[in-house]
């Protein structure tokens, strides 16, 4: 049997798919032959299969470095639900004994998900050195470039970890990597000769639409109008948790026949799973959510993605709208834009990193501590509180101070000359990061304000050609909502007594002929 046939065979056996999607086979073949690969595939194209299948087939362990714990957990749950059992996510939420148990039996797993931070753990490192790691995957590899510079410094240390693990095959995957970011990934991993498999990310079944409005009230009016006409699986994206709750409640009030809920990272596990699964299961029509929703969701018929707030960069936007229309049917991205909206991401960019005064104050305090022979507390949250910084700000600053040799572990290293210089270096670094983000934001806003083809424009930094749109192109090319005739969700009403509902749940599959009392 040749390799292709062998792979297709196993694809069917383990994952139940008949054929590979675009790009998968090419990447998997290279990986199986021991070649390092950078794969850029559009969202929803089945990126994770590119390492899940090799993980099954290769001798030894596949490690997947993933940026978000929730994302890892979702993937593990889904794999387990689909009978891929030799998989585990090692994370900080694991109970001590559970983690110990996993590490002791690490050789029993085929696929191990970790965060870059967890990978720094000496015990995990020594455990991994004792086993055969055949494939090292960096999922969402653009994080190396996007975040590595800032508050996820551990992304920068992946290179040396790969060396320590005796150079397993490396696979870096991303859905949004511009040519600049691609080069960044190669150099950060010190793998200049990686084979690149770059696939066009334009989605020919998604229609781009932007409506400029005067303010929030008009956004609500437009949404109410749409929801009175269409009952289709819909996501509405917001930039704050509070807004998801408020607008969700108002939409529900105005559209009592629609089933609307909100979702954000602040909710309890059981509620997050319930909402996500109700949506997948067509028990819900609309979810008002933050960017916490959607990664790893597997629903082919999301028809409409509304941005009530727009994200701070084009890459995030492409990723979010990429959740629509995975079944290939006509789907819409609608961005509701009011001129004031820019203040939200702008202020976020400003507050994300510590200000000049904050950096100055922290360094001042550190030098006093040094002179009094005080060391840093062990608890990072406590330090952040002491300095009145957010945890993200402190993590960023700590990395900077470490990089400049001002602190090492819990001890403070001080030299007057160095101190001054470091302050200016950190300060100018912050300025340059903020500038870069503001540039990204301007790029996003200028796309919104474009008067020519939105489709061509949004993909222009990623690729040179685009496919011909399958249904319609964009609001600048003459699309209007009235042209859109999606299949509507059928709703089955179940407003029965609790007795009847209890029976339906528990005696599922039984004949319901006797009357509920």
């Amino acid at each position, binding site marked *: 049997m040749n390799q292709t046939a062998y792979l297709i065979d196993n694809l069917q056996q383990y994952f139940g798919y008949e054929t590979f999607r675009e790009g998968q086979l090419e990447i998997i073949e290279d990986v199986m032959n021991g070649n390092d690969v950078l794969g850029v595939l559009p969202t929803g194209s089945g990126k994770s299969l590119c390492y899940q299948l090799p993980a099954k087939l290769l001798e030894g362990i596949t490690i997947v470095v993933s940026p978000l714990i929730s994302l890892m*957990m979702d993937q593990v*749950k*889904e794999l387990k*639900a*689909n*009978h891929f059992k030799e998989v585990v996510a090692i994370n900080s939420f694991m*109970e001590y004994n*559970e983690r110990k148990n996993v590490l002791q039996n690490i050789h029993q797993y085929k696929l191990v998900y970790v965060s870059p931070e967890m990978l720094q753990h000496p015990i995990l490192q020594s455990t991994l050195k004792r086993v055969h790691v055949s494939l090292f995957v960096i999922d969402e590899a653009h994080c190396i470039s996007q975040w590595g510079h800032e508050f996820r410094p551990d992304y920068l240390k992946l290179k040396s970890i790969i060396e320590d693990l005796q150079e397993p095959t490396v696979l870096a995957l991303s859905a949004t990597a511009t040519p600049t970011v691609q080069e960044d990934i190669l150099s950060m991993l010190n793998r200049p000769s990686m084979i690149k498999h770059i696939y066009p990310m334009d989605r020919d079944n998604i229609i781009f639409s932007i409506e400029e409005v005067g303010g929030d009230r008009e956004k609500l009016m437009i949404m109410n109008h749409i929801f009175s006409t269409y009952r289709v699986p819909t996501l509405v994206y917001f930039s704050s948790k509070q807004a998801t*709750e408020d607008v969700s*409640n108002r939409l*529900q009030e105005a559209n009592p026949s629609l089933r609307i*809920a*909100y979702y954000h990272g602040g*909710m*309890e*596990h*059981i*509620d997050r*799973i*319930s*909402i996500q*699964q*109700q949506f997948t*299961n067509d*028990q819900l029509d609309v979810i008002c959510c933050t960017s916490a929703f959607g990664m790893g969701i597997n629903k082919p018929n999301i028809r409409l993605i509304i941005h009530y707030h727009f994200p701070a960069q084009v890459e995030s936007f492409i990723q979010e709208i990429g959740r629509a229309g995975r079944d290939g049917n006509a789907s819409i991205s609608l961005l509701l834009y009011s001129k004031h909206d820019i203040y939200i991401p702008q202020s976020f960019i400003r507050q994300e990193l510590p200000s000049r005064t904050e950096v100055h104050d922290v360094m001042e305090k550190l030098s006093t501590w040094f002179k009094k022979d005080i060391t840093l507390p062990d608890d990072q949250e406590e330090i952040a509180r002491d300095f009145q910084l957010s945890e993200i700000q402190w993590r960023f600053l700590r990395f900077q101070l470490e990089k400049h040799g001002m602190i090492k572990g819990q001890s403070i290293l001080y030299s007057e000359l160095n101190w001054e210089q470091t302050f200016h270096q950190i300060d100018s670094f912050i300025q340059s990061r903020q500038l870069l983000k503001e540039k990204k934001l301007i790029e996003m806003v200028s796309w919104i304000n474009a008067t020519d083809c939105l489709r061509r424009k949004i993909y222009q930094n990623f690729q040179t050609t685009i496919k011909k749109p399958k249904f319609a192109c964009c609001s600048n090319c003459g699309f209007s909502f009235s042209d859109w005739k999606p299949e509507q969700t059928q709703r089955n009403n179940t407003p029965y007594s*609790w*007795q009847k*509902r*209890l*029976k*339906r*749940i*528990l*005696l*599922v*599959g039984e004949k319901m002929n006797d009357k509920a009392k």
Partner: protein
Amino acid sequence: MQLLDQIIITCLEKIKTERSIQAIYYILIGKKSIQTVQDAHIFKIGSFYGIYKTLGRDAFDERILQLKKQNVIKPHVENTIQLTEKGLNIVHQQKDDSFFQHINGLRYSDMEVAFSERLLLVIQTVTNSKMGYYSFIPIIDRSTITTWVRQFFYVHKDNQDKVLLALYHELRQLLKGISDLHASIFVDRLTGYQNYGQSIQQLCYQYNLHEHDIQLRLTATHHYMLHEVLNLQSQYPLLTNFVNDLTTNRFITNSAKKTNQLLHQHYSLKQIAAYRGLKLNTIYDHIVEIAIYDPSFPLHQYVDQSAYQEIIAAIKQANSFKLKQIKQLLRETTSYFQIRLVIATTTISLKSGENNESNSLFN
């Protein structure tokens, strides 16, 4: 008035200005400290202990602020708060809500989460398995729960129909004993095959109730179920399996448990302290903890009859449970430890609270 507000002012009416408002918060979230458990006991609000473990400090403070605005409570000295005339009237009117009959925090709060999560996950697992659908995403991911449910599933996997039928009958029987509102909320929360339960927020919308109310009413339903199942095991043979190993954690801390074991081996308190390398005061804390939970606690071994009478008299005279005030009225030789033990075991109430109904837990 929101249920949470009613509970807060009910507690306040019992605690009066003896404690800061924080003490009520600690009781609601079930803080595992001897002070909080003792407060729950001496002020006879043990039924509220740990009934809202996920209540955030901010949300609690928000309710306090609202109650102040509504002129139901007002600040008193030293970070304490008291009820206004209006507040007192409300406290005396309320309580027809069956909620108050069902909750029993000191007894059930430690079992509640495990019981309800086992139930939810068993229902999801068995209904899906019966329909041959194994690719569902579990709604509970706490490993202690999933391990238990896995075992339950293996034991019963050959008679899933029977399990579901028994669950149906037992749950229906249980739910018939409570209001339709409580039963309906409970059923809406269940997840079955291709039918995911409602989130707390969805329930809020559907029943037009505040999030706190939904949480508290679910808790009350769980307490009620635990009570029925534990007391009528023969009527609930299947659900009994869900609670068998969940004994009420009678001693809040494991450390107190150890001290109790040594006590039963007739070691003296000093010996226990030396043996365990703990301070004598810590051992005293354990003894008070044991005294609260153990109805057969031999108080006379620590406080003789005359000292006991004097302490009771002093509490009445001070009309307070504040140790310092009581101690001032007593002989030098009476120790704080003795006063605490008497408070821990007494059932007397302070005056001016004409509401003297004794707590069901301690009679």
